[in-house]
């Protein structure tokens, strides 16, 4: 819920009030372009009154020929490039036609969405792209916010309604909540719930958001419950998960990556070699992800943003795509990935994670307990690739072959191993086995330079340059 503090009094605004406030803001003036789910956003501004002071034009180019004639040709209509061309076109039209006339007193905007709402048979993916490109103040250079939404209502009308609310929330946040990122993101679901709308990608750009780190904002989507997962590329670009994962074979390594070590990199390399050799896996299309769960980022219920960015920077240095998720249980991660692809999914993990996977205490909330969780996890030929463990002190070596699981789960474990659903990696670099993130951290703290031998060279450089983890 959005609360605006003003004159010592907290004011709660609903969608109607937000639209009205924008309409009554004499500076805001612009265009709306909507494709695919009615003109649900602009409708709010027409309904609440005072729209003449806000709406320069509203367009809904449903026909593909019309759409292409206005915004240029495209392969797909519900995609980010189409949204961008709509925003650019409408924003430029505002400036071209109106700048000289009222540019000194108007902060122009263009709002656009392109959406695929539930079809008659209910067979399509219900999602859409939505954005606002605007001047924060008159004569300013542009700023922009783009989101990707998934509509979860089972009814087309409800989806349209929810979309309208999100659109108003987005515009309101862009105009009035720019300085409060938490409230900005939280407010996107004002008047809605996570059962109706999921926002799995948000990207800020332009003058008003120079100091916004999109990776942090992506993580906040997950932290604040607007999405269960968010993704960004090595260069920091925010990614929309379904566009990255769609129909691709996916290999995931979960970890804390605090910091990413040579062992982490070796684990993914080993698993990739095995995964790429699996029948049916097109090795050229494999998407590799390093995943950090929210529980791995939280300390005492709070996220340390500096620590998060340090980890993200170091993962970026290895060139890997990062997934932030709220899927503590592996079967939930598997279900999420399977939603995006029918191709094979591989998860690589160390022995400690495999041991936890067979701990029944994690499945008490499932009626079918551990059997249900494994039924969900190993759907669609999902396979686990296990990196061995060596105890640095005792020298004890643990692999799939000698992992001890509870006696009543032994047969199940053996079955999964025999079926090849749990595979021991045997192509590891032995020198990497004794490397643990916690040792790297303690050596950094102790100013012991041997930590540099435990992480990739580029990671060591970034740690030193930016004095991460107490390096001095």
């Amino acid at each position, binding site marked *: 819920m959005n609360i605006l503090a003003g004159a010592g009094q907290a004011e709660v605004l609903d969608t109607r009030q937000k639209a009205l406030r924008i309409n009554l803001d004499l500076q805001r003036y612009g265009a709306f372009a909507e494709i695919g789910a009615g003109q649900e956003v602009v409708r709010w501004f027409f309904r609440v009154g005072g729209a003449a002071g806000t709406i320069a034009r509203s367009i809904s180019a449903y026909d593909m020929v019309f759409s292409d004639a206005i915004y240029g040709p495209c392969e797909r209509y519900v995609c980010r490039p189409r949204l961008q061309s709509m925003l650019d076109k409408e924003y430029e039209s505002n400036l071209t036609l109106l700048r000289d006339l009222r540019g000194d007193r108007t902060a122009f905007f263009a709002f656009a969405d392109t959406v695929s709402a539930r079809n008659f048979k209910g067979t399509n993916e219900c999602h859409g792209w939505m954005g606002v490109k605007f001047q924060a103040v008159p004569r300013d250079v542009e700023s922009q916010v783009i989101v990707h939404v998934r509509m979860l209502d089972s009814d087309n009308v409800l989806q349209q309604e929810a979309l309208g609310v999100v659109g108003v929330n987005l515009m309101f946040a862009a105009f009035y909540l720019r300085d409060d990122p938490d409230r900005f993101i939280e407010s996107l679901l004002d008047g809605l719930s996570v059962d109706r709308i999921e926002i799995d990608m948000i990207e800020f750009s332009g003058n008003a958001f120079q100091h916004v780190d999109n990776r942090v904002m992506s993580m906040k989507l997950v932290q604040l419950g607007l999405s269960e997962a968010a993704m960004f590329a090595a260069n920091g670009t925010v990614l929309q998960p379904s566009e990255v994962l769609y129909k691709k074979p996916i290999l995931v390594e979960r970890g804390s990556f605090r910091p990413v070590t040579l062992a982490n990199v070796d684990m993914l390399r080993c698993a990739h070699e095995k995964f790429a050799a699996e029948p049916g896996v097109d090795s050229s299309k494999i998407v590799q992800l390093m995943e950090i769960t929210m529980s791995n980022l939280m300390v005492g219920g709070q996220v340390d943003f500096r620590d998060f960015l340090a980890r993200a920077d170091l993962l970026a240095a290895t060139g890997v795509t990062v997934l932030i998720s709220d899927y503590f249980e592996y079967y939930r991660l598997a279900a999420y990935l399977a939603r995006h692809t029918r191709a094979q999914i591989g998860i690589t993990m160390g022995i400690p994670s495999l041991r936890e996977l067979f701990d029944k205490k994690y499945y008490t909330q499932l009626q079918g307990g551990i059997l249900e969780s494994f039924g969900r996890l190993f759907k669609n030929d999902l396979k686990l690739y296990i990196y061995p463990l060596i105890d640095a002190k005792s020298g*004890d*070596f643990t*692999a799939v072959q000698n992992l001890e699981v509870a006696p009543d789960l032994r047969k199940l474990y053996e079955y999964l191993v025999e079926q090849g659903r749990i595979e021991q990696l*045997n192509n*590891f670099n*032995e020198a990497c086995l004794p490397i643990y993130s916690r040792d790297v951290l303690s050596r950094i703290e102790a100013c012991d330079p041997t930590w540099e031998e435990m992480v990739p060279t580029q990671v060591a450089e970034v740690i030193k340059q930016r004095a991460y983890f107490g390096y001095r």
Partner: protein
Amino acid sequence: MKVLIADDDPVSRRLLESYLRKWEYEVEVTTDGEQAWQRIQDGEFPIVICDWMMPKVDGPELIRRIREQGQNGYIYTILLTSKSNKGDFVEGMQSGADEFVSKPFDHDELHARLRAAERIVNLERSLRAAKAVVERDTEG
């Protein structure tokens, strides 16, 4: 007691090494049959555990070489393999192996077999020592 491991599979090799050190054997590790053969010629290894399938020199061939050469003391050999049918067992034993253990191996079973190997090696050593005493007394 010194044990030589010959296995090209890093997981199996590491597992064996880890267990044997925990059981307080003196362990040396090689990654193929040729390397193992070199070490056997250079040093004294009363027990050899070798994988069947290895590059250059496989397990049965390594054991045949050990038996043909005839070392100073007896070398107890354990052939470790994922092969498990009767024909493989016969072939492995005919090469001169003393034990045939299927992979994945049970560590308790392997430990028991190693203790048996130690008993036999120690027995052979004491027999050899007794024989040497008898021969010396006879010559004297």
